[in-house]
């Protein structure tokens, strides 16, 4: 709704509520002349012209962006304007936070007249620091009481109504400010109407990959720009007079354009949309023009793709006009959009746009010239912001299952700001999902340099290293997980398996136990531990009773039908000397494994069963198997 520029609670009239001194207010929106239908935003209150009443600056979202509204009050009411200065030591120099009370001489009522000095109120607004008091019909001031920001109180006397004074902390005498002598050159003069929006040149900040054109020439061979060349895709129509003028200019400057490395592709949109009375055959028109560049007709999907690219790069999503041109750089980035005609000179000057830095693109994309804040922290913020936008494109591509596109934008984000953690993290996940493990590991390493306390990422990386058989690295990251989160069961199990394979069975057993105390129901870990305790070659490690207990429990829970678990039980039974039982269990496991087609297990069981039948236990060789 907003993208398309529709109105939403728009054209609302600004309001003025007049204090009727009885606890109520009366609507004076029209009578005040403040009831502009603008999308008002900030209001700054100031007696700008120092004529004794309060004027307003108001800024808007829409046109005009700013108005100065002069208060033309003609009442006989009196006023007083005070500028304060704190002492600059215990009170800030601006005296922000000071509270001032005006005591009127003839007033017998309980009504008080108190104002405070603030910096920042309303919405995005700061009003004048000159404190303004309307005094009504009273013109005699008894005293002014100031409570300074440091809490000290001070009284000022000898102040007359309808004046402007400077009150300095600790200097009990008010200093009159000079009367403004110059004549004021403000006059009723509503803001100018904006000139109509003309052609727009839009150098983009975020480089998106342009739609693939898949151009073929009339013989069916691939066509389009070659390596190192830019392409201007020009959308035009035969009924559009400025389009024809523009195409003629491209024709006249064809040599210059080609020499500068840019080709033009003219895509007519005549066949799209409603038929035009003045429409003609596009190829005839181009032939008459002797147009020297390739041309074609835009298809609806291609036009929609360009419209979508425009809508992503431009805040207000309106249908593209003709002519519209898209400058695509040699790397395939959409670099500049021209809504309306573009001159050859402009185009040639823009060819380098996409090659610049983010800061250069930001500066060139500005629609009114200005500068960027020269400060390393702000400069870093700019890069991070751009990286976050590229990152979002990466996420969007990933959501639409374009993994290659996602990797492209995420890599671009990493390049824009190497310290932007989400891009590295997402890229690591992406590589992980496509099985590019070495790349994934490298991205995880980068990410963890930025977010070293992300235990989940450490765990993923440890698993990845295990998979890549980089045991030492895997071990380091498993340990890091456990340092950050000591009860991380899966890290315990992963590390245990790693340690078991590295002939550190004692540590392996202890991690299995730690993991199982955090996550007692983990059958796989329980089975691995049982196997280790049943079959380890070293008698110091072997604990067949416990192995048996674990294996019995596991098999009971699973109904004695999982061949792997039965295999473990058989080994534990054999370890306890229950060879008949072990052989029976192994036979049952073997038949189940054969049914399931688990050849590896079948082979293993066929080697173990004869041992049990010979009344021997099965022990792993000195370097135990990796579970």
């Amino acid at each position, binding site marked *: 709704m907003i993208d398309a520029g529709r109105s939403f609670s728009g054209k609302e009239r600004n309001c003025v509520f007049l204090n009727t001194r009885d606890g109520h207010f009366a609507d004076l929106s029209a*009578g005040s002349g403040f009831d502009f239908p603008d999308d008002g*935003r900030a209001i700054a209150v100031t007696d700008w012209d120092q004529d004794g009443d309060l004027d307003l600056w108001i800024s808007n979202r829409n046109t005009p962006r700013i108005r100065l509204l002069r208060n033309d009050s003609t009442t006989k009411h009196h006023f007083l304007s005070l500028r304060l200065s704190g002492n600059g030591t215990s009170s800030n120099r601006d005296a922000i936070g000071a509270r001032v009370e005006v005591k009127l001489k003839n007033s017998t009522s309980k009504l008080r007249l108190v104002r405070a000095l603030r910096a*920042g109120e309303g919405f*995005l607004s700061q009003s004048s620091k000159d404190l303004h008091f309307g005094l009504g019909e009273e013109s005699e001031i008894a005293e002014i009481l100031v409570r300074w920001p440091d809490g000290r109180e001070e009284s000022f006397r000898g102040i007359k109504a309808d004046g402007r004074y400077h009150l300095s902390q600790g200097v009990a005498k008010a200093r009159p400010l000079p009367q403004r002598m110059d004549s004021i050159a403000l006059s*009723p003069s509503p803001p100018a109407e904006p000139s109509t929006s003309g052609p727009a040149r839009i150098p983009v900040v975020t480089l998106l990959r342009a739609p693939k054109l898949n151009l073929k020439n009339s013989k069916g061979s691939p066509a389009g720009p070659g390596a190192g060349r830019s392409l201007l895709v020009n959308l035009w129509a035969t009924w559009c007079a400025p389009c024809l003028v523009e195409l003629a200019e491209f024709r006249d400057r064809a040599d210059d354009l080609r020499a500068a490395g840019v080709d033009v592709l003219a895509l007519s949109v005549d066949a799209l949309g409603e038929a035009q009375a003045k429409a003609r055959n596009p190829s005839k028109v181009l032939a008459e023009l002797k147009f020297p560049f390739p041309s074609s007709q835009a298809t609806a999907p291609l036009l929609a793709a360009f419209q979508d690219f425009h809508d992503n790069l431009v805040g207000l999503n309106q249908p593209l006009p003709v002519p519209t041109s898209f400058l695509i750089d040699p790397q395939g980035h959409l670099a500049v959009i021209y809504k309306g005609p573009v001159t050859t000179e402009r185009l040639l000057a823009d060819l380098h746009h996409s090659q610049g830095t983010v800061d250069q693109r930001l500066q060139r994309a500005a629609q009114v010239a200005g500068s*960027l804040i020269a400060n390393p*922290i702000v400069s870093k913020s700019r890069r991070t*912001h751009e990286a976050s936008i590229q990152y979002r494109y990466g996420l969007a591509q990933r959501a639409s299952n374009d993994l290659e596109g996602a990797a492209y934008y995420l890599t671009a984000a990493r390049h824009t700001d190497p310290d932007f953690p989400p891009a590295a993290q997402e890229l690591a996940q992406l590589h992980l999902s496509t099985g590019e493990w070495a790349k994934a590991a490298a991205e995880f390493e980068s990410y963890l340099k930025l977010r070293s306390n992300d235990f989940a990422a450490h765990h993923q990386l440890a698993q990845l290293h295990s998979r890549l058989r980089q045991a030492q690295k895997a071990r380091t990251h498993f340990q890091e997980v456990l340092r950050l989160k000591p009860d991380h069961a899966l890290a315990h199990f992963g590390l245990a398996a790693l340690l078991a394979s590295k002939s550190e069975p004692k540590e392996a057993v202890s991690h299995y136990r730690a993991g199982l105390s955090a996550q007692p129901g983990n059958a796989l870990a329980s089975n691995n531990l049982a196997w280790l305790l049943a079959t380890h070659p070293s008698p110091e490690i072997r604990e067949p009773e416990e192995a048996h207990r674990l294996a019995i429990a596991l098999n009971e829970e699973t109904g004695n039908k999982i061949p792997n678990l039965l295999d473990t039980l058989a080994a534990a039974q054999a370890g306890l000397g229950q060879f008949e039982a072990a052989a029976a269990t192994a036979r049952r496991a073997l038949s189940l494994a054969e049914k399931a087609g688990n050849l590896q297990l079948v082979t293993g069981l066929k080697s173990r069963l004869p041992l049990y039948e010979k009344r021997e236990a099965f022990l792993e060789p000195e370097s135990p198997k990796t579970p």
Partner: protein
Amino acid sequence: MSCQERNDSGGHARSDQTPSKDTTPPPGVQESASAAQENTSSAVPNARTDQSWMLDDPGTDGWESEVLAQQAQNQLKSLGSLFFEEGEVADYLASNFTCDPLVPNHLQRVFEDELALVERSAPRDPAAPPGGAATLTASFEAVRAHAQLSPNDRRHFEFKITALTRDPSALSSGDFQTEVLFSLSFFTGKTIVEHHASWAIAWSGSDSEPPKLKSIAVKIFARTTTKRAQPLFSDVTASALASNPSYSSQLTHGMNHWLSRLPVRAMLNRFGTPGLAVGDVNGDGLDDLYLCQEPGLPNRLFLQQADGTAREVAAEWGVDWLEDSRAALLLDLDNDGDQDLALTIYGNLVIARNVGGMRFEVATALPTSSSTASLAAADYDRDGWLDLFVCAYVQEDGGSSMGATGERFVYHDAKNGAANSLFHNEGASGGKIAFREVTSSTGLGINNRRWSFAASWEDFDHDGDQDLYVANDYGRNNLYRNDDGHFVDVAAAAGVEDSASGMSVAWGDYNRDGRMDLYVSNMFSAAGSRITTQQQFKSGTAPAIRNRFLRFARGNSLFRNGGESFQDVSLAANVNLGRWAWSSNFVDLNNDAWLDLVVANGYLSSNDETGDL
């Protein structure tokens, strides 16, 4: 497709042909010298801001009452034209129509000064018989007689239907009742008159034609009549600014112009964030003005000239920044007697030092949440240096505009916004100004992620230190009481949670009892009021939640300071209807020593007015 002409005036002529969505693709390419394209990639990464939180269009969301409300609204809009143009009332009226005089007979003068006369209706005499069609006709004629001299841009009327009910026993009849806020303004040649009233209208509905009015009862009526032909304010913008090139090249164009050629890089870019700061930057005794602009447009610094006009000097002062700017303050941060600049931009608080009243020089920049908003300064710990509080709105990191992944967005009580920050001024020396973030250590980390738009400091409890009120969108506001430099959120206990769409904060003693009262901008929504009062609205939800939604639509809030706590007097004081409000300020417009209120409002205007609330 529209055609862009290059004409003498540089104008932009558009034909009205736009491609329809179901256009058949053209036949294959026939040109011999042409290239053919096929299988164009349509994979456009769509990373636009999520706007799923927008309220539904009330006319299409299946609420039967909303369809009736729309019909009634159309009838009223048409009927209202009779205030200014001749016409027949009979077509709009059911038989036996009854009507109070639209201007009640007995008005009380409640206020009068040289600026305006305010009259309100006395309570309606229940014994007085209502009139009929002739009464309505006479009411229209009376306005027409006075408004003859009104030019079109000085006469307006408006109806807002805030409630629609149907008697369950009369559903078959098609009859219904509405509560309507009515306002009318016109120029008589000598004065500007405005009527503001609340009406109860009974309608007779039917399937075949628009509903007709059965009765109008005028419940509340107020009339403001100025004592002068010209409005209080003159718009002197062009005479003040037009000599600057940036005036016509930049400031006469609205955001829709810029957004057709600039990207939206952050959620608030579409809303517009043209912050304003007034201060005397060159020490000549005259207020100057700094204007913030959205990304890709330079901020502007206007130096007031002796004749009251403003000269734009942002580039020569080194502050024509293109950054996504939100709010600025001009204030003395290093206690050297001149006005420095504090500025919130996307992701940073920027501090620039005033160098000799000639230019600004960036002294430091401090990382903040990305989506910064208003800025407010005070010396909260009374060490003599001004500290800065930065509001932040949406949590934009992580690619979601609705908050960080895994955090729930609750429209009426959202706590997943971006974190606000308090920066302590560590003092300045040798041209350096240092700040340290103290948000958590001062207790401001509590309740700190509530989509904050604005904040303002004031000593509400009169204990000598500065307390802080923060206005938050989507829920509760904060009142942080300052206890020796440590903050405690006492908004609930003090009665100023004001759970709604907080947009701005203003402090002022409107009733002249010496205590600082509080005015908070919100969104008034007639549609919101209608829908949330319907039986079926969130019918499975606890009444407390329903009331929270209803409260959201009420509009602005005025809280009278009673010392320790506040009383909500918004409705009684008649200051809630600020529409979709942004900045609000207390201002004594007529120098009578009593603070009035000004409200800037309106969300998004364009030529298409179909989405109004």
